[in-house]
């Protein structure tokens, strides 16, 4: 399209806007402002939902390949792309059952809270230079605050169900949380030490030369393992271990409530994958591609990197059996914590030598 036509188009649109009544004009302008586009469209809701839908579809297809199956096939034009929509409709059309014994206000509100809080993580995650909903100097800390609060909703949900399987699942989840959280923090400390900032954009900029996975490889390992525990994926899906506890803390949930927990789990998975890409894999730094404009290039590389992390996490489900709770505690305290501390020391030494 020649530029003249575009200019004319813009002029016509501006004229059209001028003639509109004030509230409507404000609204249309609002739709074009950052205050709308960022939270709702790109790093916000729509992007999250699309990414999560893709992740779930991708998981099914990937696992099907590992297991010599076909995976979703029929819904949607290509390879069951719309299977998830069908599943969502199925889940939503199921009867909402609140057990008689459950503490109703808590039981009903926790899924909503869990899903909303998991989405909140994305508010602080920059997906490209400038592509962040809430830019903050302590963005990383905010992300971890949100990630630390989300488990509480799960604990309350397990308790409020008043069923034994939920209760056991909840207790297991509590133990899981304190087995992974400390190494999680320590691994993060090494990155902030290397980047000298809690600002996620600054952390990415600090990786312009080389990603932090190179100096802080041990930290990356610790971070990845604890992140898998954080999102309750195999081999650390101990609180929801199906063969042991039916469905752990979510046993009593069904229909839309279950759908929310399901969604929340995958949102958390994606958030953690993006975080890994930001902290260790160099974020949006990457070679430029001629036909991609600069504003798209950053998100492209970041999403590509986080997809690699996602597929790594998903693949684990196909190859590992589940570990037990005491093994996880063992791994967390006897292996990951010393490793994270060692990593901290290595990073400090590198800084001292002026290499970082």
């Amino acid at each position, binding site marked *: 399209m020649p530029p003249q036509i575009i200019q004319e188009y813009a002029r016509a649109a501006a004229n059209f806007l001028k003639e509109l009544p004030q509230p409507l004009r404000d609204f249309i302008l609002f739709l074009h402002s950052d205050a709308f586009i960022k939270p709702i469209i790109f790093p916000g809701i729509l992007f999250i939902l699309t990414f999560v839908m893709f992740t779930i579809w991708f998981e099914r297809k990937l*696992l099907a390949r590992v297991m010599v199956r076909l995976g979703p096939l029929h819904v949607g034009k290509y390879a069951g792309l719309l299977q998830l929509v069908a599943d969502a409709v199925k889940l939503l059309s199921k009867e909402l059952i609140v057990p008689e014994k459950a503490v109703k206000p808590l039981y009903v509100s926790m899924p909503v809270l869990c899903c909303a809080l998991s989405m909140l993580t994305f508010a602080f995650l920059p997906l490209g230079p400038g592509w962040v909903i809430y830019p903050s100097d302590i963005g990383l800390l905010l992300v971890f605050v949100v990630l630390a609060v989300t488990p509480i909703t799960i604990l309350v949900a397990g308790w409020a169900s008043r069923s034994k399987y939920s209760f056991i699942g909840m207790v297991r989840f509590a133990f899981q949380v304190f087995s992974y959280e400390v190494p999680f923090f320590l691994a993060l400390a090494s990155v902030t030490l290397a980047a000298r900032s809690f600002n996620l954009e600054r952390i990415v900029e600090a990786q312009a030369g080389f990603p932090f996975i190179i100096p802080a490889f041990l930290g990356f390992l610790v971070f990845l393992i604890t992140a898998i525990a954080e999102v309750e994926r195999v081999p650390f899906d*101990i609180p929801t*271990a199906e063969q*042991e*506890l039916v469905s752990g803390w979510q046993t009593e949930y069904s229909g839309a409530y279950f759908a929310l927990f399901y969604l929340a789990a995958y949102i958390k998975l994606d958030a953690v994958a993006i975080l890994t890409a930001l902290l260790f894999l160099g974020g949006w730094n990457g070679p430029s591609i001629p036909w991609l404009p600069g504003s798209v290039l950053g998100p492209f590389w970041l999403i590509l990197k986080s997809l690699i992390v996602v597929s790594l996490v998903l693949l684990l489900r196909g190859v590992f059996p*589940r570990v037990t709770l005491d093994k996880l505690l063992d791994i967390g305290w006897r292996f990951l914590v010393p490793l994270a501390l060692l990593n901290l020391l290595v990073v400090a030494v590198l800084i001292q030598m002026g290499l970082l």
Partner: protein
Amino acid sequence: MVAEEVKSVEVYEVGPTLTFSMGPQHPGTGHFRMVITVLGDTVVRCDPDPGFVHRGEEKMCEYKTWITNIPHLERPAILDAAGMVYPYVLAVERLMGVEPPERAKYLRVIMAELQRICSHLYWLGLMGVFAGHATMYMWCFGDREYLVDLTQLIGGQRITHSYFVPGGVRNDAPAKVPKELVKEFRRYYRMMLGRDYGGEVPEDFRRYALAVCEFFDTRLDEYYRMLLDSSIFIYRTKGVGVLRREDAVSLGVVGPVLRGSGVRSDTRIDEPYDAYPYIKFNVPTMDGCDSYSRMMVGYYEMKESVRIIEQAIEQMPDGPVKLKQHPVSIRVPAGEVFASAEAARGQCSFYIRSDGTDRPYRVKICSPSFRNLIALPHLIRDVRVADIPIIYWSLNYWPVECDR
């Protein structure tokens, strides 16, 4: 069925315990219920409660004729129909004083071993699932399909084939294999192993069966690398659910559970029947006495079964497959008999009493699952909750076979 009694049976003084049921609607058990009492994360008591799929097979046997009992008796263990019917047929033959023809003996052995593999594959696959490893299940079931195809070629049915009859087998194995089956097998072989089958897979039955055996043997090694050799699986199963040798004997457990406790006992060797005396095979045993040993015994048994099938196919003579003029309705002389055969889950025995009519007077099934169930409360004690499914499934417990 035990709900009321349990509360009054024991009160633990060590601390507050929690009692809950596991099953019958639980992804970790079948149609079977365990009443579990835990103290913290430790199981202090397990009370098995079978009977959810009790169908009164033994009573029904008294109402059916000797022959119509055969398809009926397959139902308790459809995955292992041959193993279940084998002792019944042996018992009836012993009462009648007849012996099947040589070829039928070999065909029976092939069928029994095929079903043993199918049943063990189910065991291995579900062991994977219970350890949280769904891939193993899918792999086992994908490969099992070709063994089931072979069963279908011989017996005419995929699973419950009613192939064994007193005095032989129902029909002979075919000489030719359908072209589509061969083509499909070649495709699968290439997909799974990444290479073509060395040479043509012929449509000749014997050579096709040998090709399937060879393929399956290769796949077994991959199962080992995938699950059985993985460190997490070894951690989950080794030292979990220890059944010492003397306990195994005094509780009367059978099959891989017994051999996993280091007892070298197998009905195929102890009381050889049909073509087993002519075939060379090992009886794998493990001394670990734990869940891992039991699973590994099952794994090595599959390897041995492949060897048995290969030998049986090579040695199988030509000739008739059943006694002449085999009647539809038979009368069995009065008497009593106790016959055993090695089913997939262990020794399966039938006690049969005949009163000389066309129906049995009393049929008692000592099914392997029932005899292994006796060990369950002894194994699930002082273990973690997470070990329950592992121990439970290391017994290869089949609720329907136990309840009959």
